[in-house]
């Protein structure tokens, strides 16, 4: 499998990254180099093998569904690029 300039454009869009048109080809080459190297994973016999999803052999812990934190609006807003009257200010998303 290899990616084309068109694929790179699509991946970039999905990643919310901008790639200049003249960079699509070089980037495709770079990604293909890495993907080709990754493809050696195809040599491994994984028939009947469970995928490993966690590095630690334990059940997910449960706790009571109760509020443990909160009431820190100003702390949360302290790092906002833009805020007004206790709200985040973001670009318009609905016309």
């Amino acid at each position, binding site marked *: 499998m290899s990616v084309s300039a068109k694929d790179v454009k699509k991946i970039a869009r999905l990643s919310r990254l901008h790639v200049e048109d003249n960079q699509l080809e070089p980037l495709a080459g770079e990604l293909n180099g*890495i993907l080709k190297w*990754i493809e050696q994973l195809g040599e491994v016999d*994984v028939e009947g093998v*469970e995928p*490993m999803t966690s*590095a*630690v052999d334990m059940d997910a812990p449960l706790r009571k569904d109760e509020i443990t934190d909160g009431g820190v609006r100003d702390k949360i807003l302290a*790092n906002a690029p833009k805020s007004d009257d206790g709200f*985040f200010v973001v670009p318009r998303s609905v016309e």
Partner: protein
Amino acid sequence: MSDLTKLTLSGALDGMAKGDFTSAELTQAHIKACKDAVKLNAFVTDTHELAMDMAKASDMRRQKAKSSGQSVGKLEGAPLGIKDLFCTEGVKTTAGSKILGEFTPPYESSVSANMKADGMVMLGKLNLDEFAMGSSNETSAFGPVINPWRKGQDLVPGGSSGGSASAVAADLCLGATATDTGGSIRQPASFTGTVGIKPTYGRCSRWGTVAFASSLDQAGPIAKTVKDSAILLESMSGYDPKDSTSINAPVPDWASACGASIKGLRIGIPKEYTIDGMPAEIEKLWQQGIEWLKAAGAEIVDVSLPHTKYALPAYYVVAPAEASSNLARYDGMRYGLRVEGADLADTYERTRTEGFGAEVRRRIMIGTYVLSAGYYDAYYLRAQKVRTRIAEDFKAAWEKCDALLTPTCPSAPFAVGRKVNDPITMYLNDIFTVTANLAGLPGISIPAALDADGLPLGLQIIGRAMDEETVFKAASALEDAAGFTAKPEKWW
């Protein structure tokens, strides 16, 4: 007074306990060393004033404890560095990236909170590869860190914990926190003649540490000696309900394991841990390590980890996949950098394209690709299955041995700029360290020798999950046998 920066952490703690010097004096000496070492670019943010306040407060606590007969914290008064991936309350945290802007956490990471509770003095935030993605500290938005070890030209300190490693090697701090996703503690330790341990996944809470690849990320210390690394790890570790993968188990007295006998300990030698083009000196050092452990009473056994060569490619699917998901949060809306665009989507794209560096963008795109419809099974699911195979290799090895001895890296530190444009060559640095991340196992790097160019080389011990005790024992035996006392000549 002799130079206090030459002390080990353990020596400095003893000195303060005996009243030979105060934390304020110790901290002052280290601040001076930091100010003299700007060329190394080890720190992103200095907190020298804060450090002096913390030191004075520590001296008062010690006085008070003394008069009331109480004990003091494990790190009481020790000036340390914090990798700038750990959120620190009221102190800017960058993750080595521009995208976090002036982000100043209103909270403290669990790891650094544990250390503060134990009396740490924080000298500053240490430079790193951007979002811990790199093996040379050259991807940092704040410029590369320079290795204090030098050979005619500037060398990299390894990465991603390059600032931590350089600062400890240059005696700028008594020890430092670091993180390891594929080798980011152990490889820089090897490159700088320091000790670095990545504990079992889940020992150190990930809460408040900027996430890269959550199923692989694990914090640990970089230190001057094996015992120092044990003291630091004891403080950093511990159960934290705020991290759902935190292990609920007591933290053992690892410092006491250092120096314990390794008589009868079975050390496995995995035949797959050698690669084409690896310098003969590293092969020779590995043999020397075997002889050292044998002489200390260990039994050497040959083992096989047949899927070793697939570990790096599996890692370069799993880690970017998790990273692409974790880094989706940097959208310029709630914190960090925002670059205004024509509309919402354009603002997202401009923010992320300007905010992230080339390597981070590359990994986000690979991660997005391997998770995308039609490719998920072929790449991501297969990589996770290969990860199971790698973990099984270790399980089989533990039938025959108690710990493994390997080289830490396939090379000595290299020149700044040499590999930065060749991703796969750069990735190969982690070939011997990444397996422990995929399997969640503890691994330590110990400085073992200098190569013909006078540059440090490390050896690695990997242990069973939760068995850091054996790792520390074996590492301590290696440290004793190697007698590595070399320090970089001060040029900075």
